[in-house]
């Protein structure tokens, strides 16, 4: 008996069960229960969604995100609420207030006291004032702005250079890879801090910007910090990405993309980079605090942002001179640095736990 069961003719070499030998009656219909087994109970998750779910269950990482968001909102909004400027020397009714020197938090100077008694209103000095009669709260806020901006941009520079260099080296491989990695080895073994100090000293003398522009306000030190970050710090990320790409490019989907004629740039962009995204995110999150640390160190050595522009590092450093009498001037910026660095570190750890595929058990 010949049943076709609606099937194409079987290849005689195929090892598959020959369904033609069975009649339609021999097939049993699946019961409802069996059909239900095929139902998708939960939505399929993507790698990103899975990571975010894990991250949202990590209280430390979520707390860090909240703290960082609060700081971000604070530094964006507060300067427009507080009526002082970071480089403004306090004055009452247009007259310079010489008594507003080194005020303790939430106190007023004699002139301000008099002005308030006469019926005027004065915004409180939440963190007091510094030795040049400037409101300290605003300075700390601006310092946080500058420090965060430095951390962010430095990481961005590192990210871009490291990403491009690492992907080219890893994707092309062979001799190009060997030479590119030798260069990385040499840069990696340079003592970064010493080179930063050296270049800052030199660029300080040689770089000149037109006065008044944003670059000159920031000071050559910060520019040289960025230059050095761009020159030295990318090697770690480049190495990491190269390693990732070396292993990813052996995958079948890359081979498949290549057989249908995709260009290398498209393969890197579409197939390889999304797969090492987790490594990139984690190392960038950990790069930001390290840049903030570097900046505060440079401010300490005396080659940080240019006065009167404050950064957290330069504020903390300036506070050391009057430490015995005004310890709060060190405490506020120092606490801010600790809070930011701690949050980024915890967030980075949380991201690693959530996204690093190697940790998946």
């Amino acid at each position, binding site marked *: 008996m010949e049943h076709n069961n609606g099937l194409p003719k079987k290849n005689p070499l195929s090892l598959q069960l020959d369904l033609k030998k069975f009649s339609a009656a021999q097939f049993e219909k699946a019961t409802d229960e069996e059909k239900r087994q095929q139902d998708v109970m939960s939505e399929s998750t993507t790698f990103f969604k899975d990571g975010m779910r894990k991250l949202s269950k990590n209280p430390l990482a979520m707390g860090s995100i909240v703290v960082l968001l609060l700081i971000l909102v604070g530094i964006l909004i507060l300067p427009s609420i507080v009526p002082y400027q970071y480089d403004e020397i306090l004055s009452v009714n247009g007259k310079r207030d010489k008594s507003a020197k080194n005020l303790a938090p939430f106190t007023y100077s004699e002139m301000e006291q008099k002005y308030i008694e006469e019926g005027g209103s004065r915004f409180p000095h939440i963190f007091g004032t510094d030795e040049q009669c400037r409101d300290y709260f605003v300075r700390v806020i601006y310092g946080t702005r500058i420090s965060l901006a430095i951390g962010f941009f430095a990481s961005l520079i590192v990210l871009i250079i490291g990403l491009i260099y690492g992907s080219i080296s890893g994707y092309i491989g062979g001799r190009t890879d060997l030479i590119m990695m030798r260069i990385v*080895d*040499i840069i990696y*073994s*340079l*003592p*970064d*801090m*010493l*080179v930063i*100090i*050296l*270049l800052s*000293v*030199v660029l300080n*003398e*040689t770089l000149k910007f037109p006065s008044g522009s944003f670059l000159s306000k920031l000071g050559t030190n910060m520019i040289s910090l960025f230059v050095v970050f761009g020159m030295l710090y990318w090697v770690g990320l480049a190495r990491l990405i190269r390693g990732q790409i070396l292993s990813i490019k052996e995958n079948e989907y890359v081979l498949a993309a290549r057989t249908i004629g995709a260009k290398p740039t498209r393969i890197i962009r579409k197939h390889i980079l999304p797969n090492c995204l987790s490594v990139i995110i984690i190392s960038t999150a950990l790069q930001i*605090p390290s840049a903030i*640390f570097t900046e*505060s*160190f440079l401010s*300490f*050595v*005396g*080659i940080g942002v240019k006065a009167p522009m404050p950064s957290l*590092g330069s504020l*903390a*450093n300036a506070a*050391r001179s009057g*430490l*015995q009498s005004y*310890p709060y001037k*060190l405490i506020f910026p*120092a606490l801010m*640095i*600790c809070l930011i*660095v*701690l949050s980024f*570190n*915890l967030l980075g750890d949380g991201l690693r736990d959530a996204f690093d595929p190697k940790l998946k058990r």
Partner: protein
Amino acid sequence: MAKYILKRVLLSVVTVLIICAITFFAMHAVPGGPFNREKALSEATIEALNARYGLDKPVFEQFLQYLKGLLHFDFGVSLKNGRAIKDIISESFPISARLGVSAMAVALVCGTVFGSTAALMRNRLPDRLIVFFSTLFTAVPSFVLATLLLLVFCIKLGWMPVWSPQTPTYILPVLSLSAYPMAYITRLSKTSMLDALGQDYIRTARAKGVSRFKMIFKHALRNSLIPVITYTGPQVAYIITGSMVIETIFTVGGLGSKFVSAIGNRDYTLIMATTIFLATLMVIATLLCDLLYKVVDPRIQYD
């Protein structure tokens, strides 16, 4: 093995040469020569001085001259006080070295002890405390910690004398210098200890009835130390840069504080010499650490 060592040594030599070149040419790019002063010297005097110190020769020749001097430990003289830099280094470096080596020892010993303790008492109170403090200390800049320690223990409480050449008290400088590496090593050795404790050989050791003491010290701890050794190289670099800050705060007259004041004074020859000296030190430390790592862990292949 010999090939690997040769390769690493060669790379280190190249690195040191590059550092020398960067420092030399960078310092050369700074406008103004060593004989620029408020009272202008006559052309003839400057020419004579340049000829005397070989500054009239092409830059590259001057660089070779400088390198030749370096081989004889001749770093030139300080621009500010005219002292031989060799003397400044040989006088202040021992102080820095004592500070740095003690800090490193403290960081390594305490870090591994704390880390291993945390791993062995996982999720109990000591673990929680250790994790809390090690996370906290990786977020405190060393100069803030040092300043606070100085304020509290030397000035407010008066328990420790302030550093002076006659009564050198290394406790606070060492403590503040080792805080960050200690916290880092604690975290590192905790993860590696946990990793080692989860290995099959630990289960085997326990199955055959090895005592807990022997299991921890002979099997787990020794294997967990390998990642700690890899961190020793970067740690030397951290301690050298960190000691600049710590020495300045505690007014310890070591090489680090000399370097910071040289930056402030724009004393270019001293900056140049100290950079090359410290960088060479770091490169040597990294090299030794890499070689040691290969010796300690036989699983690593020499490529």
